[in-house]
């Protein structure tokens, strides 16, 4: 599915954010660690730019007018399944973040992240990994905290003890390599656990997740 992309080349990235200043800032911060091939400020422009440039990764603002990041993913993913999305936001509302993840984003980082860390996250998403920030790990642990109600599929709607342990370490601020050392497993296994959690997030029918996904954000940031 990756069409034999060569990852010794920097990943090709489209930056989608409705704030021009922020797009310019991200370009500057990322430097030549990744290749920004286009940027876009609206859902329409974003869909067009992604279809034209077919990037490895789309760096996607969660909050945008006309449906936000979720809408971009929904419109692009069916025709371009190889494009990977990394959500980026200043928002900490669990519902927003879980919604873009369920739509298909492979990770979530907050806008306070440093340029170096952001470039690393993009490279990892380009390579097919899931990227969880401490905050996303916290949201997920919260969403899966309660035992599933009857009727929910236990397998998809519950985290394993190991997955929980990995997420707790991410929430505590540990990096994958450190988690691997502490749990005496390989980095690949840590990545596999995180990917499994991502899959559960996207497929689970847990009430907490469905409720979040359905309920659009209460306060719209669009007009601010």
């Amino acid at each position: 599915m990756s069409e034999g992309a060569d990852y010794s080349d920097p990943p090709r990235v489209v930056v989608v954010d409705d704030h021009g200043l922020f797009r310019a800032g991200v370009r500057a911060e990322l430097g030549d660690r990744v290749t920004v091939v286009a940027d876009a400020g609206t859902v329409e422009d974003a869909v067009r730019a992604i279809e034209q440039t077919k990037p490895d990764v789309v760096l996607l603002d969660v909050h945008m007018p006309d449906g936000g990041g979720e809408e971009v993913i929904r419109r692009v993913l069916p025709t371009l399944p190889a494009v990977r999305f990394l959500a980026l936001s200043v928002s900490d509302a669990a519902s927003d973040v879980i919604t873009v993840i369920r739509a298909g984003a492979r990770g979530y980082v907050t806008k306070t992240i440093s340029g170096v860390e952001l470039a690393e996250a993009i490279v990892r998403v380009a390579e097919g990994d899931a990227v969880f920030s401490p905050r996303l790990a916290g949201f997920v642990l919260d969403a899966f905290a309660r035992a599933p109600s009857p009727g929910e599929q236990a397998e998809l709607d519950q985290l394993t003890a190991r997955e929980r342990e990995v997420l707790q370490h991410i929430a505590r601020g540990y990096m994958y390599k450190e988690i691997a050392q502490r749990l005496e497993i390989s980095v690949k296994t840590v990545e596999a656990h995180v990917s499994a959690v991502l899959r559960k997030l996207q497929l689970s029918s847990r009430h907490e997740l469905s409720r979040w996904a359905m309920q659009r954000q209460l306060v719209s940031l669009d007009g601010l």
Partner: protein
Amino acid sequence: MRLARSLSFERAARIREQERAEVAAHLHDSVLQTLALIQTRSNDGAAVATLARRQERALRRWLFERPDAGAKHDTIGTVLELAAGEVEELHSVPIEAVIVGDGPLDTRAEALVQAAREAMTNAAKFARSERVDLYAEVTPTRVVAFIRDRGVGFDPDAIPADRRGLRDSIVGRMRRHGGRATVHSAPGDGTEVELTMELQSA
């Protein structure tokens, strides 16, 4: 019928206008004031960063806080986040607080919050770390908190006598309230303080 409809339109418009006015008032008192301050202090990078972080935290609380949080009673989660915010402001080191679950604040939980605050203060003051991570998990029977930095670290067996904070305010306080504190640290390797408190089941 038409009258009723236009009345309800009017009512909706009025409510929208009130909401807009409230948002405008809030932004004026908070964000615009901060932006003005930032302009006057634009040559002081550290002050600008602190102002921006503080405003971000306040605005986020206003936008996303559960409506019942804070107003009626303090919960473990809100008090922990507040402590993180205060330490961050006091020492100008960003603290990433991630809190899972929540519960009412009793004496034991209060002791844990104070120990966590002391651990965050230590990390911010002594560790020379770019940021501090706080992770707490609250269940009905237990609170666990981790305070982690990537700073200079130290040898926990050779704590200088003047660092009373660790011995008294963290380890001692947790023990007095029936909990425990564990310090993982080594020179050059950062520090993680782990706090565990069993709660009286309600």
